[in-house]
């Protein structure tokens, strides 16, 4: 019983940040048709910026402790506004007519460049932003002790998911974005400014990556290499859930989170490849992921 609870709770916590990051990736794919390899680097940028900001905030005793969370949120926003429009308008725009595999390679090149840029700015030593982690105290569930921050992260993931769903389905801008996902050309013909939607969606995708990075920063040591682990995992989540599907990303994040935590508890050596095993199985049974219908796009 304890083991099952531990697997479930660890999986849930793992799934929460994974969902935040992966849903950004899937949104960008849905709208721009780009499988963004650099998404992991944007996560890392968010984590580094948040770690620096948190260090500055608590180091100088600038304000009340709980405002640190808003500092992290602001860090993610800064990354999104600084990088998103620049990357989409300055670079990705040039490749839209090309094959989607070429676009994967373009973002792979960006990933390599951002990786080194991060090292140049922050160096190779790890950063710790532990202050916000302990702030909420501990909780006890099923006789297991957890840091309350972890569950706050689950709450943040739920909030992100709900807000994103409402934003996409209940606002005009959201419906315009859905229209572009459904058919780029017809939307353009109907008077939708597709370029604006692209910038908007991409910047929001960057924000989600940075948000995931910013709020996991207190849990981990922020150091080179975190981006690779994240991109591989969120890649798997997005493919399992169906490229471009928000609901799919949620379910798939949960599946991947649970599979990973089950592997860690039961068979630690399988942690790495269980994710890919799940991905291969899902793809073999449902080639376009679990939620393929929501991604109705023309070829």
């Amino acid at each position, binding site marked *: 019983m304890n083991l099952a609870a531990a697997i479930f709770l660890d999986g849930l916590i793992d799934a929460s940040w994974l969902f935040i990051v992966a849903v950004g990736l899937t949104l960008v794919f849905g709208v721009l048709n780009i*499988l963004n390899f650099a998404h992991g680097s944007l996560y890392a940028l968010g984590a580094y910026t948040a770690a620096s900001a948190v260090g500055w905030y608590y180091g100088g005793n600038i304000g009340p402790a709980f405002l640190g969370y808003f500092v992290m949120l602001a860090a993610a926003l800064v990354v999104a506004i600084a990088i998103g429009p620049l990357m989409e308008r300055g*670079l990705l725009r*040039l*490749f839209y007519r*090309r094959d*989607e*595999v*070429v676009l*994967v*390679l*373009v973002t*792979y*090149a*960006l*990933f*390599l*460049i951002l*990786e*080194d*840029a991060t*090292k*140049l700015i922050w160096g190779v030593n790890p950063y710790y932003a532990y202050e916000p982690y302990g702030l909420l105290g501990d909780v006890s569930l099923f006789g297991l002790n957890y840091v309350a921050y972890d569950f706050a992260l689950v709450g943040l993931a739920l909030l992100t998911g709900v807000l994103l769903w409402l934003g996409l389905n209940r606002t005009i801008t959201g419906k315009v974005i859905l229209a572009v996902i459904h058919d780029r050309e017809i939307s353009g013909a109907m008077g939708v400014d597709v370029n604006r939607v692209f910038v908007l969606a991409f910047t929001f995708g960057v924000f989600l990556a940075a948000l995931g990075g910013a709020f996991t920063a207190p849990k981990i040591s922020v150091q080179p290499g975190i981006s690779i682990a994240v991109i*591989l995992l969120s*890649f*798997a989540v997005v*493919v399992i859930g169906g*490229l471009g599907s928000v609901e799919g990303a949620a379910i798939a994040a949960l599946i991947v989170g649970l599979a990973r935590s089950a592997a860690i508890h039961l068979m630690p*050596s*399988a942690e*790495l*490849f269980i994710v*890919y*095993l799940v*991905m*291969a199985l899902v*793809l*073999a049974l449902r*080639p*376009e992921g679990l939620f393929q219908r929501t991604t109705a796009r023309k070829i």
Partner: protein
Amino acid sequence: MAGWLRTSAAALVCFVALVLLGRVLPNWFVLVATLAFAKGIVALGLVVLMRCGLVSFGQGIFFCTGAYAAGLTIRLLGLDDGVLLTALGGLLALILGLIIAPLLAGYRGIFFATLTLALSMIAYGILDKVSWLGGSDGFNLHAPSFVGYHPATPQDVSYAIFVLTSLATVVAAALCRIHFDSLRGLLSLAARDNEIRVEYLGASVRWVSGMNFAVAALLAGIGGALSALSLGHIDPDFAFWTTSGEFVFLAILSGYASVTAVFVASIIVELVRSYSSQYFPNTWQGALGLFLLLVILFLPQGLGSLLLVRRGKPKSQEVRAESGK
């Protein structure tokens, strides 16, 4: 002169030139060229796949199959003949490819790419954890022999591996060229353009892509075995996604119009890598990324388009097929 005769003659001339050059060039360059050719063979396999519109992000699975087949044969059976090991590496990768091909032949585009990626990462996970395969550290190989010839010095060993790799390279390149110009080879380009049309004309797209996948597997296995022999060391990174990504990089860089371009691209990349890791040790990855971006931006059809234009024959079948799109 018939096309295949001309190609074979060109291949023979290339091989002789390479063997002679290998004697003159400095040892470090011979090492770089060996590795570049070995990786070029794998990329050539990807080019074969790309001609029918498929890109595999998981050639690492065949690359590591070839490498581990060669390595384990040396370690467990004590056989160390370079030619035999290379053939064995290719054969085992081909068998694996033929097993996987029917599973994958129905997939297209990004799904094909991600599924191959997943398969190669599963292979990576297994190699990383199974201790009798060397675990995450891998294992070292001692120098191979060559049909009874046991090279004495390290220089002789690297030269012998270079000659073997050159031989495999020109044979693979010539066969691919002949295949590309054949009716069967041109069918791939047709499938890339319009699968439904090809099906209606009576050919099977599944069969075409399956066969191309098997050829790509064979070439990746050969390249893997040669890389293992040349490096003298094997580890699970042979199956890691960065390795597979490198092959895609090479294939995109060279384009699918020219076979020679694959190996030219491979040597350029290997040189860029070794120079930039020497002169900008902290930013060489970024330099490689920038190089990749520039090539994709300014050479959409890859280096191969450059070679064809220079030769002044834009009327070759591929280019016509491409401009007809």
